């Protein structure tokens, strides 16, 4: 284990330690809320990246798992279960849903799959808006007795996000992850080499759905009131699904830290800038997307690598980064087919 390797491994743990100890500095409850919300977004971002980034299947429909996780947790908590049971239940329901969605839709390729996911999400949203059992369009409310312990929510989210990063990192380095990347690169070639694309996609989808469901559960428990459409901010809303997709793209699709960065940026922007400049946040996201697609398809991580490479080139011109390009073809985003 070289010093550099140790350093590489240490950084995430240092960050984790900082975040664990952070509440001891007596932060304002607003700050804790921002961090909590950001953690929840990061979880969804990481989850989406597993399917959209590693496996290359672009889904616009992750709001389904978010919403189902939220409702499942809400129902479980209201029937007296502990929050941890509720989180597990949320993950379970989401996994079930991922199979229901994935079994038919993963037979589709490219844009067909993406469009199908939009259809599924909207259909679920409309149904949930009407089912009286969960309150329909009036939304659903959790009744939890006991005082509001904000830090409890904070730590739960922190643990969940750490878990998500760990899972993502493990996938990235494992043979499972290699299979996923193969599917992304060329599904038919992967099939020839013995990787069954269909099953691998389903499993990746299940893992991602579980994580997203937990995120939805965390959100539900904190905000107590959830509704399907919410005038644009509901748990099944189209914009929610889009936000989930936006984060990994901004941060760096297909990487481990990209979704984390993207989620962090998104969380800050949503909470702070949107409040202060509500009039232009769509413009910001739109312009950001366009710039990313045209200039730096690998998002923030790609930008970061570019800067590093700039330094590298000064010292000596080796084939390091270019070998990277040869291995993966053009950059992770461009030229890669849907």
């Amino acid at each position, binding site marked *: 284990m070289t010093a550099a390797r140790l350093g590489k491994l240490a950084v995430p743990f240092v960050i984790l330690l900082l975040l664990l100890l952070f509440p001891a500095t007596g932060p304002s409850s607003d700050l804790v809320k921002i961090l909590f919300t950001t953690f929840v977004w990061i979880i969804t971002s990481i989850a989406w990246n597993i399917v959209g980034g590693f496996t290359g299947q672009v889904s616009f429909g992750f709001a389904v798992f978010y919403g189902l996780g939220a409702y499942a947790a809400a129902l479980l908590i209201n029937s007296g279960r502990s929050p941890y049971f509720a989180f597990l239940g949320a993950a379970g329901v989401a996994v079930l849903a991922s199979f229901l969605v994935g079994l038919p839709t993963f037979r589709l390729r490219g844009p067909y799959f993406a469009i199908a996911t939009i259809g599924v999400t909207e259909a679920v949203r409309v149904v949930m808006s*009407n089912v009286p059992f969960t309150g329909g369009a009036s939304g659903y409310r959790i*009744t939890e007795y006991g005082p509001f312990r904000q830090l409890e929510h904070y730590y739960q989210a922190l643990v969940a996000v750490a878990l998500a990063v760990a899972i993502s990192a493990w996938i990235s380095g494992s043979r499972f992850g290699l299979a996923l990347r193969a599917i992304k690169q060329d599904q038919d070639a992967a099939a020839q080499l013995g990787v069954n694309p269909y099953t691998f996609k389903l499993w990746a989808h299940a893992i991602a759905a579980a994580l997203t469901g937990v995120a939805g559960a965390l959100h539900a428990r904190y905000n107590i009131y959830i509704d399907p459409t919410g005038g644009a901010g509901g748990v099944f809303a189209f914009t929610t699904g889009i936000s989930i997709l936006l984060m990994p793209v901004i941060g760096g699709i297909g990487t481990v830290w990209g979704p984390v960065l993207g989620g962090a940026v998104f969380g800050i922007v949503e909470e702070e800038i949107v409040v202060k400049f509500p009039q232009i946040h769509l413009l910001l996201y739109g312009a950001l997307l366009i710039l990313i697609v045209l200039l730096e398809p690998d998002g923030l991580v790609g930008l*970061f690598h570019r800067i590093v490479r700039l330094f590298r080139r000064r010292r000596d011109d080796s084939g390091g980064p270019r070998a990277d390009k040869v291995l993966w073809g053009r950059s992770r985003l461009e030229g890669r087919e849907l």
Partner: protein
Amino acid sequence: MENRFMRNRRWKAGLLFLAGVAGLFASPTQSAAQGGDTITIGVVLPISGREGKPGQYQKEGVELAIKQINDKGGLTIKGKKYHLKEAFYDDGSDSAKSASLAERVMSTDNATAVIGGYSTALGEAESVMPDRYKTPWLTPGAAATSIFSHGYQYVFGTLSPVLLLGSTTAEFLGYLVDQGKLKKGLKIAMAVENTDHGIDYVNGVQDWISKHPGYFTVVFNEKFELGGTDFSGLLQKVKAARADIFLSDAHLQDYITMQRQYLQSGMHHQVISYGARGPEEAARKALGDGINYIFAGIWWSDKLPYPQAQKFINDYKQFTGRAPDSWYAATAYDSMRILAQAIQQAGSTDKTKIRDALRKAELKDSILPGTVLKYGPNGQAGYPFVIVQNQPGGKVEIVYPKNAATGAPIAPTP
């Protein structure tokens, strides 16, 4: 794939980057200074998005009241003068944002009280926060009774329940029958929005009908999704129901869309109502004479004869440059006034004491129908509705109750 040198650099740079991000978090967010001589009133309303227009009016109502109080020197508590300061956030008609902003204004901005939540969905989302932060919250725009039936201790609703709106509407229809303008035994078709608001409305109407047999029967009752663009299918069904009266409960945008398509379908009913919508400026602009003869049950009308109501209208005109549009600003205005009165009566900036004062408060010169604003045991106010009708020539007259009427109802629709 990269060598050790690059890895070092990368992680150092990464750490620096994340430190920067953390630094952004750690920088203290400006919080409004509490104490000194200001009291912060949080206001979380939509001024953009679907509910932007009514939200805007409610914001103006609150601001007018705040301005008037400050112009008089502010509130006096324990001999000290306190200025009112507004902390406003636009939730963009998004319920998740609404809750988040309500939380922010209660925690970071340390608001003593919050007024907000226009429309049921936004109100429901916000209503979770008051008890969490023990901050009194008043909603001048959300009337669904479900908000007030969870046992929350810090929520107050300045709008009379929609249930009452429904039964008042039915009562008014019964009155028309008694007056000989309508026959007995007419059929009613109802199309309401798929929210607590709509459900309460239907229940209110059916409540009255069951208590007064023989007057009407409901032959059609369906819910539609908010924010739709095309109601023609729904209207086809209404047409097929061959009813005599058409009652709907919708928000402003849906009201305009549906009425437009109603007219385009060539239908005719003896009485049409859209719940609490009718005389809005935006509807007049979009549909012109198409909104004539529509009845609305609203929480306040500019035709109310009270002197304080007339004064409000003049003050509002001066403040915003236009006349109040329907009832929106009025309920917000009185919410602020009763809040100020409660703070004064509590004699303290302690939020729980203010909450207690609100429970007992009575605004005796309220501009709302009945002239007295008082909150019920569940936090929701209850005062009579007025039924208005859009009459030809751009006029809007109060047609019910009789003792407040400024014009005679025109029914059936010609």
